[in-house]
């Protein structure tokens, strides 16, 4: 009886521990993109995975990084153990605890600390900063696994080797090393594993154009459902699982060793050396290449057809380091602190204004961008709202903010923002998780300017948002798209560009710009003052303004393009004349561009927005 209970308990624990992973693995073999639906077994996510150059690149980086940091950490950690072992007891135990503390420290603290340190000493974040951070957090694991072995070192054996004529170095390598080798090996494997699956510290210390598997998975998953990422995560899990099994495996006690065993040992040694060499080689070839120039691009997530990068690299011989951000504010923090160096960035209107005011931008030399005339003059005119002399920005995408709704769930006509306050749709409403977009909704509903600095108006809008909070299912950014495609919500605030894509995926969705008005936004390319590759950056913009390239991007991201030449190339008449993609002037006249409100204005909005966040949702 007792035994049965014990077994049930164990099974429950196991389920509890492994169920989430099980679901992930299951999903990675599911032919359907939708989680709850089983469409049959497939390996296509895995094959797609290995065709994706960006992912393979991050795989190379990950292996390279893990190998190198594990090697360095193992060497340093082992030396530290040998030195500590010579010390007297008290200082030894003190140092041991000091080295162990970083292991228990919250990773986010360690990551943040590293970032501060690197930025503080003026190191720009790059592969080497990540490497340093990884080596540092791996060393305690090496010490932890090597130290017990070092303490057990049999000095008699070492002396016997000297006695038989061995030099100190030879005796160490031949006698002491094999003794502590199991510890060194498990230290190495542990470090390798830790480096392999680290996300937080890497996230904080990585530079531009640098992705490991974990940061890649993170950025990809943020953008929406990606079964390839399930496959990748499954592979990562399996790798880590196997590595940890290896670490914990106790070698069987050998009483006799045949010639055969010796050969096996050699094969194992050669194999591991081969793996190391391949790992390092991978990293090196992944890092270098035969490019003459390079350009660091910082763009919104899913805001470019990846094929365009390949074409650009092939044509110009310029290596593109491509990075993505999720909000203007995130981008601004990174760029303004100089944590990472970028050349060309694609912010939104008000952010461009802020960057101009803070002297972060370089004037664009339009003479070098022959294709800039493909952008319609009306967009340059609108851009004057934030770039008065059209000196800094080349418009890239534009659109409106509106309501996406599901016709099967909403039966009344949607013409006003008011519907987002309708109790009927409690828990079926998705709001944008960004200050300006949230206030755009509330201020528009109230009939105020979306750039208001009037505290009374803001107070009113804030109250409105707090009142709305219990009705809102979630405040999200990119996930509005996926949730609405999956019929997981009835109404969502969204950018017009997403609407076309969503309608393609789900016929029941419809987009409106409410009658009270809304925001019209423009995202455009700007070149940073700090840029060291201005020429390459200009070439990048020139390339993106070509009609056929702009068309590729339009097809891929479905956001309205300001490129008139590209629009003329759109074959599908319905889309070429779509009022979602290219709203007519009656709609645009109701809409306002965001302005930069100054840092005081930003603070004001932020403080109100914080109040919304802190408010009780019930």
């Amino acid at each position, binding site marked *: 009886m007792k035994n049965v209970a014990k077994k049930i308990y164990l099974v429950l624990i196991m389920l509890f521990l492994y169920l989430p992973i099980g679901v992930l693995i299951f999903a990675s073999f599911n032919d359907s993109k939708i989680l709850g639906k089983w469409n049959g077994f497939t390996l296509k996510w895995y094959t797609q995975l290995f065709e994706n150059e960006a992912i393979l690149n991050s795989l190379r980086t990950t292996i390279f990084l893990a190998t190198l940091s594990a090697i360095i950490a193992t060497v340093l950690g082992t030396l530290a153990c040998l030195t500590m072992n010579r010390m007297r007891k008290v200082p030894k135990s003190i140092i041991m605890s000091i080295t162990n503390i970083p292991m228990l420290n919250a990773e986010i603290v360690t990551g943040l600390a590293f970032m501060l340190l690197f930025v503080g000493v003026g190191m720009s974040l790059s592969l080497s900063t990540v490497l340093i951070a990884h080596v540092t957090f791996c060393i305690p694991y090496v010490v932890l696994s090597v130290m017990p072995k070092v303490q057990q070192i049999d000095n008699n054996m070492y002396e016997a080797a000297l*006695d038989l*004529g*061995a030099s100190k170095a030879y005796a160490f390598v031949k006698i002491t090393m094999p003794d502590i080798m199991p510890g060194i090996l498990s230290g190495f494997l542990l470090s390798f594993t830790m480096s392999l699956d680290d996300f937080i510290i890497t996230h904080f210390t990585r530079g531009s154009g640098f992705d490991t598997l974990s940061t890649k998975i993170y950025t990809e998953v943020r953008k929406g459902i990606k079964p390839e990422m399930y496959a990748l995560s499954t592979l990562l899990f399996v790798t880590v699982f196997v590595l940890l099994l290896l670490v914990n495996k106790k070698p069987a006690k050998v009483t006799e*060793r045949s010639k055969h065993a010796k050969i096996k040992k050699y094969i194992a040694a050669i194999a591991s050396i081969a793996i190391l060499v391949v790992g390092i080689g991978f990293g090196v070839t992944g890092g270098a290449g035969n490019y003459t120039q390079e350009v660091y691009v910082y763009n919104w997530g899913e805001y470019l057809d990846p094929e365009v990068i390949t074409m650009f690299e092939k044509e110009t011989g310029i290596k593109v380091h491509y990075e993505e951000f999720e909000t203007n504010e995130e981008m601004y923090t990174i760029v303004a602190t100089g944590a990472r160096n970028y050349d060309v960035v694609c912010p939104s209107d008000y952010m461009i204004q802020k960057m101009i005011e803070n002297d972060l931008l370089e004037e664009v030399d339009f003479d070098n961008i022959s294709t800039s005339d493909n952008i319609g003059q009306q967009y340059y005119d609108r851009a004057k709202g934030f770039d008065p002399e059209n000196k800094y920005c080349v418009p890239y995408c534009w659109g409106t903010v509106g309501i996406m709704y599901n016709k099967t769930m909403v039966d009344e006509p949607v013409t006003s923002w008011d519907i987002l306050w309708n109790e009927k749709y409690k828990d079926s409403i998705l709001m944008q998780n960004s200050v300006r977009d949230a206030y755009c909704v509330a201020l528009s509903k109230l009939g105020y300017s979306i750039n208001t600095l009037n505290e009374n108006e803001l107070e009113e809008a804030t109250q409105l948002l707090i009142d709305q909070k219990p009705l809102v299912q979630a405040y999200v950014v990119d996930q509005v798209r996926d949730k609405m495609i999956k019929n997981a919500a009835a109404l969502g605030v969204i950018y017009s560009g997403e609407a076309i894509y969503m309608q393609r995926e789900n016929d029941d969705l419809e987009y409106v710009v409410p009658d009270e008005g809304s925001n019209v936004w423009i995202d455009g390319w700007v070149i940073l003052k700090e840029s060291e590759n201005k020429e390459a950056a200009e070439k990048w913009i020139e390339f993106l303004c070509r009609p056929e390239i702009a068309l590729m991007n339009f097809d891929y991201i479905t956001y309205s393009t300001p490129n008139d030449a590209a629009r003329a190339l759109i074959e599908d008449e319905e889309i070429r004349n779509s009022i979602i993609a290219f709203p007519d002037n009656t709609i645009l006249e109701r809409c306002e561009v965001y302005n930069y409100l100054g840092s005081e204005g930003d603070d004001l909005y932020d403080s109100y927005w914080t109040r919304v966040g802190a408010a009780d949702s019930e």
Partner: protein
Amino acid sequence: MNNDKLIDLVNISKSYGKNLILDDLNLYVRENEFITLLGPSGCGKTTTLRLIGGFESPDTGKIIFDGKDITELPPNKRQLNTVFQKYALFTHMTIAENIAFGLKIKKKSKSYIDDKIKYALKLVNLDGYENRMADSLSGGQQQRIAIARAIVNEPKVLLLDEPLGALDLKLRQDMQYELIRLKEELGITFIYVTHDQEEALTMSDTIVVMNQGYIQQIGTPEDIYNEPENAFVADFIGDSNIIPATMIEDKVVEILGTKFKCVDEGFGKNKPVDAVIRPEDVILVEPDKGIIKGKVTSLIFKGVHYEMEVMANGYEWLVQSTKLVPVGTEVGIDVDPFNIQIMHKPESEDEEAVALDE
């Protein structure tokens, strides 16, 4: 045996922390000599060997090897090999790899090494153990491999630290015989450590008796056994009757109030001394035919002989004899003058373990 000094320890002192382990030790070893350090546990035997081997350096004094000062020479540069008290086999290697270790460093050919391994394993009676892992062997087997590993290098001097301690009696006697044969064959000088006095007596050319870091006596096994220079040596080398006595004059000693004839001279007149009489030298006779009278108080059978205690003149005499005399029997005690060994009496307790000048 050559009379040249091969190894010479001159005024060696060594302490660990505040503990003085060796105090002004002087000792030399001749070429091809079998010299044994004998003494109780903790007396400094291993320490002495470690100094010779180069694993410790002395606080004062120097070590001369073949006329050269090697005090500062590291172990791997010294032409000697050690069989360690704790075996110190390389646990992650096979037996063959253990034995080949020194030879590989000397860059011997593979066939030479293979031959040596075979030869050495045969010698220590462990043929066929080549591929066993060192830590899968029993203590005794490991000890023999340790010997094999040292011997294949054909060193000038072999240091052996209780190399037979873990073996049973039979195997130990076999190995004693093998070691002596080996020494003769290879012409190696042996410095041997044991606390087994019988082993020391059987194997050595020279025995060094040590106690608490001081050399008590150096001599041939016969000297040490028959003419111990002090009570410690006498006691340590087999059981003895050590009886306080007075030297009346040359060749006459008074033991327990009775005058005995002896052969020692030069102690002066009426001087207090110790008389040493080996148990096997005490002869039991008819009560009236002995020098003094006594009564058997205990009896133990010891295999080759009986061991008895006889109470006579207030002293419990230890007696060994092949003849059984039952407890309670009145007996007379007789001793051949040659078998009475007279020793100076130490003037104080401290002096019991002092360095004796040679």
